[in-house]
């Protein structure tokens, strides 16, 4: 927050003894600026000379330090309110704002949810403002009790701790909201889809990951290349075997396709040498780095275009209304037409089906639009996906949600949810059915009490619940940082998507 000269004067009227400090600070700043300008090349000098940095209240408060500020507040009587307001607005708030915007957890949270930069700033500002008020209240409380150590509240380290706690609280609240919203099966199509700002993790679950034809072509070639590399005696085999095991490629006898091993498992399976577990793991890491370098080298020579197929993209078959509008710049009517005629195998179908005109297609492609057909599991899809991707009416979608799980797709006809033609239409739009295995519940959806009932300790069960969904057992093990073989109850009682064994 910028300070006006009037506000500085207001403070110096309240605390005239600080004028000397203010003058000295101004002097320091201007001499620092002249020394910086002196070392700049001529062009830079001219550019920077126009904007001399002035000393604001924040800099002055920083120079004075927490103890001086608190002591002054203790001494003030009539002007205490005015003084505390200045401290809140020009010290606590900007300090908290800076810390909030640099907070790593928040940055990560926003990034994983693709929150636009301006919205991030708004959130950060509101968190900082709320925090500054709380901190001011804490200072008041200490002043009221005449506590000697009340100055601690004004220390940067204290503000930082508060920012950290506030950020964690914010993330947890949002996380809870996301989880509960994702369970919401009664959204109106007109309602804004709250999932648009949730993390991508469920979309990137192995069973949900949409792979385009172009990507498959590259993956097929990659696999052929890896098989050749493994068969070539000139290549060192061990690093490639580690890559094979760590990524669950199923290329050698040591690995199973889709089963990503942890580094510890990898050491055991490949019987890597080492006096201690730490050394074995370090060796495994070295081999992994080497293996990845070999793969990169192979790709550079044989598949130079592979990375282009993995750029950030928006799948028109799955994107929410808002994504279609904001990320691809589609108009409302285009979005409506697109949703009605989903799904598309190629982008060109958007033109063929008169959803948009050909020149617009180029614009969409440039913005990262792709058309990758996505299967929609009738037993687990959200109400919104049943309507927006499969094209079910709101009422039918609701009934489907109430009556599932279905053991077979024909149950939809038996239960009169759709007729034969309706079922065909659903199949054409990508409807599939993942049978719910009797006896073993999906760990990604089992209620917390079932996890506990099965013998998993409550704290662990809570961690599983808050961290899911998981794609593989290795991912769950990695997340929990435990050895899952010590918890046989997990695999005995639960399954995990299509990769469960």
């Amino acid at each position: 927050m910028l300070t006006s000269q009037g506000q500085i004067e207001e403070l110096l009227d309240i605390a005239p003894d600080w004028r000397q400090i203010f003058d000295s600070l101004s002097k320091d700043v201007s001499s620092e600026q002249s020394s910086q300008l002196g070392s700049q090349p001529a062009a830079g000098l001219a550019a920077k000379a126009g904007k001399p940095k002035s000393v604001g209240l924040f800099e002055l408060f920083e120079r004075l330090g927490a103890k001086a500020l608190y002591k002054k507040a203790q001494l003030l009587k009539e002007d205490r309110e005015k003084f505390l307001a200045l401290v809140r607005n020009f010290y606590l708030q900007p300090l908290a704002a800076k810390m909030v915007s640099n907070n790593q957890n928040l940055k990560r949270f926003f990034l994983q949810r693709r929150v636009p930069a301006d919205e991030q700033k708004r959130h950060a500002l509101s968190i900082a403002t709320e925090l500054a008020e709380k901190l001011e209240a804490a200072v008041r409380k200490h002043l009221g009790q005449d506590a000697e150590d009340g100055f601690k509240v004004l220390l940067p380290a204290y503000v930082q701790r508060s920012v950290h706690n506030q950020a964690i609280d914010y993330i947890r609240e949002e996380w809870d909201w996301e989880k509960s919203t994702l369970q919401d099966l009664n959204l109106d199509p007109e309602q804004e889809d709250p999932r648009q700002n949730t993390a991508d993790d469920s979309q990137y679950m192995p069973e949900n990951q949409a792979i385009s034809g172009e990507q498959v072509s590259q993956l097929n070639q990659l696999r052929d290349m890896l098989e050749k590399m493994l068969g070539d005696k000139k290549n060192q085999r061990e690093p490639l075997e580690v890559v094979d095991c760590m990524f669950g490629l199923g290329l050698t006898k040591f690995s199973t396709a889709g089963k990503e091993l942890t580094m510890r498992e990898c050491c055991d399976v490949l019987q890597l040498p080492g006096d201690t577990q730490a050394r074995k793991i370090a060796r495994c890491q070295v081999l992994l780095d080497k293996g990845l370098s070999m793969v990169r080298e192979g790709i550079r020579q044989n598949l130079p275009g592979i990375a282009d197929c993995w750029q950030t993209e928006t799948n028109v078959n799955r994107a929410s209304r808002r994504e279609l509008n904001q990320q691809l710049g589609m108009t409302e009517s285009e979005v409506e037409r697109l949703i009605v005629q989903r799904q598309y195998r190629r982008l060109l179908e958007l033109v063929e089906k008169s959803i948009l005109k050909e020149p617009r297609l180029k614009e969409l492609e440039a913005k990262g639009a792709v058309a990758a057909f996505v299967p929609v599991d009738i037993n687990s899809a959200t109400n919104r996906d049943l309507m927006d991707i499969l094209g079910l009416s709101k009422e039918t979608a609701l009934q489907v949600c109430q009556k599932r799980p279905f053991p077979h797709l024909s149950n939809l006809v038996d239960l009169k949810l759709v007729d034969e033609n309706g079922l065909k239409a659903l199949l054409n739009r990508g409807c599939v059915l993942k049978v719910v295995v009797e006896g073993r519940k999906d760990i990604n959806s089992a209620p917390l009490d079932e996890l506990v009932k099965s013998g998993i300790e409550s704290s662990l069960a809570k961690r599983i619940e808050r961290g899911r969904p998981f794609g593989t057992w290795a991912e769950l093990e990695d997340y929990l940082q435990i050895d899952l073989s010590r918890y046989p109850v997990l695999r005995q009682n639960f399954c995990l998507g299509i990769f469960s064994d």
Partner: protein
Amino acid sequence: MASKVEICPEVARMAQIKTRSIGASLTNELSRLIAEESILAIDPEVDLVVEAANTLTEIDALVSTVGVNGVGVNGREIDVRPLCPDGFISVPRVLIGTPYLSAGTLVVQMSGHKGEIVAHVGPGSFLAQEDKAGQEDYVSIRVNIDPAFDLEKTLSSIVHAPVVDFGQNLKNLPDKSELARFLSNRQQLILARQKQIVTAIASKESVRELFVEVAQSTPWAKLSQILQTSGIWEVRTLRFTEKLVEKFPALSRDRIKDEIRKAGEEFGGQPETPEFRRELIKRLTKMEVEERLKSAAPAKVKQIIDAVVSGQTAKDAVNAIISNKVAVALAVSIKEQRSAIADFCQASAEEIGMAFGKLALQPAYATHSLDPEQGVEAINEALLLLEAGQIAERAEDLDIDLAVS
């Protein structure tokens, strides 16, 4: 010793998503988060402020390429490593002797998401151990845990220690192409040069900016994602192969798998999707028929399969192709007599005779034909195409089965 802290599940999960996306170690990242949390818990009067800005660990490409894993405290970056159960910590050799490690390493003892900082290892310990470690890329040292370890005191002395400018002796700064090589395959560079590059990135802002720029334009960060997707695609092809192997007994597992891979290139990597399923069934049916009915004309077989797949019955489809309707009627009758679906065999005289009887036709049928040989041939052709059509009909039923997993 610092008190035990715990990372909340949400933060741990976000860390996992992050490390997976850049191909880094989650254990390292969790130990770093625990260290950060422990420092935040120290009395504010000690005046330690954790700041990630301007640390090397903020650059994802450096985390995944050389394994930096530090926490920024009052402008100094301190390396953090998890303590292995056998009492060792390991640090990438490329970092030893660089400014990144100048503040030493904080050692975190972890148990799940809980942990505490139990020791600090000075940079000298790694330098001393480096020569003994042979050619290994990581240098491991045993950590002796002192129960009287004082985190506050240790950190205070680190942040107040004079800063050494490692950059002043650097002469040969890396350019764009060398940084790209360092990123994509640093093993091509000798270790001493790798260390110089880390030093340059750590101490020269211009090199750091250039490195970030190169990292953003180098797509290698996607390699982990590509390999993960490769595993997913392989599972999908294997699972689908298993489903189809029983339905197409004349085809080998490898042939079916190859067809799935090819279909994926055309229809995308979701075998359960309708076009993928139908096209695959069509192709496999054709292959199955060709394999089982080697004498059939491929063009007519394809015609029959297309007709059945688009909704016609096998009988109607054969009728549309063979002009001799009596031959088709006889073939249908013979087919009905044959209970089991066996590999195709030509109609025997006895079978033809029985069919005539059933259809109340004169055995003199052959006389309707100009050439008795042609009449039998027409029956056999109809029989063959009927067989092909029925294989296609059975395959049609597969469509819904394949939509279920």
